[in-house]
């Protein structure tokens, strides 16, 4: 039986096998997430076909400025995440702490802005349900648009929260000096997750804020 250093789990032969398994595992998990969000996108595209004008109206009520800011924030957080992974690969504790911290901050800013948008929608009575009110002839179908808006951005936000929690846990471990050139797999794998959540937003933003707007 191979001599196992402390960071190689007992079921693996060596750290290479562990690293490859963990990475493949995360990619496979992200595949499930594509199917999860995919269902929502599929439903959205089915409905926009029959309700193009209503969806355009609904989309025009979204705050494109805040959406754009959020896109930039999230892209920035992907950059800081990539830098965090690089710091982990190089065993630089300070870099890890800095960039993980920045990613958490940027992610939280994203969520804050999202919360602001949601609050606006509440105030404008654009939340689907009995309280929904929109002027114009397409109100009924536009409610469908907002159902998808809240479902899709809500599920995305939930994934962000999980991601931030993950990063916070990584931060604590980084503080304890756990990640070195020999072992940085959790950081890299979390990086994959974070980038994925960013990519989902890259699809969400144009779909909800830009494409739908033009009917």
């Amino acid at each position: 039986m191979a001599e196992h250093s402390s960071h190689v789990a007992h079921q693996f032969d060596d750290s290479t096998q562990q690293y490859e398994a963990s990475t493949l595992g995360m990619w496979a998990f992200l595949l499930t997430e594509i199917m999860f969000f995919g269902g929502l996108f599929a439903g959205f595209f089915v409905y926009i076909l029959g309700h193009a004008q209503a969806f355009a109206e609904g989309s025009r009520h979204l705050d494109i400025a805040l959406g754009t800011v959020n896109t930039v924030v999230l892209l920035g957080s992907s950059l800081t995440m990539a830098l965090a992974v690089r710091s982990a690969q190089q065993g630089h504790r300070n870099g890890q702490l800095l960039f993980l911290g920045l990613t958490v901050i940027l992610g939280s800013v994203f969520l804050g802005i999202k919360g602001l948008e949601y609050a606006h929608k509440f105030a404008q009575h654009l939340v689907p349900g009995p309280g929904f009110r929109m002027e114009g002839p397409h109100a009924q179908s536009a409610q469908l648009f907002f159902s998808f808006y809240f479902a899709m951005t809500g599920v995305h936000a939930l994934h962000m929260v999980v991601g931030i929690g993950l990063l916070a846990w990584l931060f604590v471990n980084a503080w304890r000096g756990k990640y070195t050139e020999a072992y940085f797999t959790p950081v890299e794998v979390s990086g994959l997750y974070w980038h994925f959540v960013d990519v989902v937003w890259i699809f969400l933003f144009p779909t909800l804020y830009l494409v739908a707007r033009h009917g």
Partner: protein
Amino acid sequence: MTDAAPEPRKHYLNCEYSVRSWLLTTDHKRIALLYLVSISAFFMLGGILAGLLRLELLTPQADLVQAETYNKLFTMHGITMIFFFLIPSIPAVLGNFLVPMMIGARDLAFPKINLLSWYVYTLGAGFTVVAMVTGGVDTGWTFYTPYSSTYANTNVILTALGVFITGFSSILTGLNFVVTIHKMRAPGLTWFRLPLFIWAHYATSLIMILGTPVIAITILLVALERGLGIGIFDPNLGGDPVLFQHLFWFYSHPAVYIMILPSMGVMSELVACFSRKRIFGYNFVAGSSMAIAILGFLVWGHHMFVSSQSMYAGIIFSLLSFLVAVPSAVKVFNWTATMYKGSIALRTPMLYAFGFVGLFTIGGLTGLFLATLATDVHVHGTYFVVAHFHYIMVGGAIMGYMGGLHFWWPKMTGRLYSDAWGRVAAVILFVGFNLTFLPQFVLGFLGMPRRYHVYPPEFQMLNVLSTAGATILGLGYLIPVLYLLWSLFKGQPAGDNPWGATGLEWQTPSPPPTFNFDKTPVVTEEAYAYDSSSEGHRG
């Protein structure tokens, strides 16, 4: 093994006895047993529910239960059997136990995630049980909208939550298997030397990973619609109730392949061992598992031929459904060909294998009636469909599960059971099963719709036959429980390889040690190398 031995050999069962060591285990073999207990409990629950249904159906009127109760019974029977028994059964019990062993690994890639999957299953099951005892749910396991999203006044959200949570258990198991099979095979174990059980579980895991998230989001949308009044499926708000059916069946059709592929994997192992011969056409059997997994995602619309789906979509789905039938036929032919000039031993697992071959063939062929557009119009929504899927799920999947359980029981427990009783039970099961479900084909063609607690009197005779069969079927399930449990206390010690089978799992003692292999085996031969001069020893 005599009592005079100084100390019993340590293995995965006796290394530690505390409750904690079981509930916090990361050993894939112990987790398999945790799952065995859970799914057996749910199988019993599902079986009792079925028994009540069949009792009510003895007469054309509602005398045992009223409509509301009956509707809850069939809903809960379906949910229990599909989500809490069939889908986990072989993967979570036999797959968990055997996948690492068959590839020469010490455990799965992610043992803690494996344990998590069992807890997630239990949590989801808990929610569902609470939903059942606090009023039940009556939407049918298919949850069609707008009934489920707007009109039902039973525990829809609670049940949906339970199923949603349990879905993640499936996803985690699938992830674990895919990574393990890719990355942790023993040296020399190339893909085409793998046992077909592994191929089957690999294909199954792909479906679990790709399909389950879709039903997760679908159930979530139904729960949101019900809870918050949003109108995605509500026609009054511009929604389309048929969209639900598309989303639902996009998962639920591949789900039936999750339920049958592992069983087919078991079949390959049983037929090879009890014919003492390589599986004929190994490459084709492996390839057909993958073909079923892929094609299975393309046929969901065959559940919706009369749903107002377009005629042209119907034609495409019908054609694809005929295509997906072919790989299954290829498997059946290859198993049969394996028996040709073999050395056939009629032990209990082989009897279950025979049952599978016959009943799955009938079940699969009756699927053609449903894939055929014109006949489906007549028999959709009738007992014909019920008979078809029970032939596949019970005659196919469960026979495979029972066969596998009986085959690997000695390895898992270190004990032998009475083969005579095993064979008696297998025959009783076969007879009871056919008596229960064959009449249902006729009932369906005569026009008896499903989910009916009352029916026109001319259907009674067939219903009585079916209920009589169900009683015998129940007996067929009860007897193994008795002799298998008995074997734990009084069974003969099994020895490493009581069946003389090939496969790395048989190179270990029974029960195996916690880390499976003292040293990692090296593989130099194809699977099922029965014609080697040694008894299939490798490594």
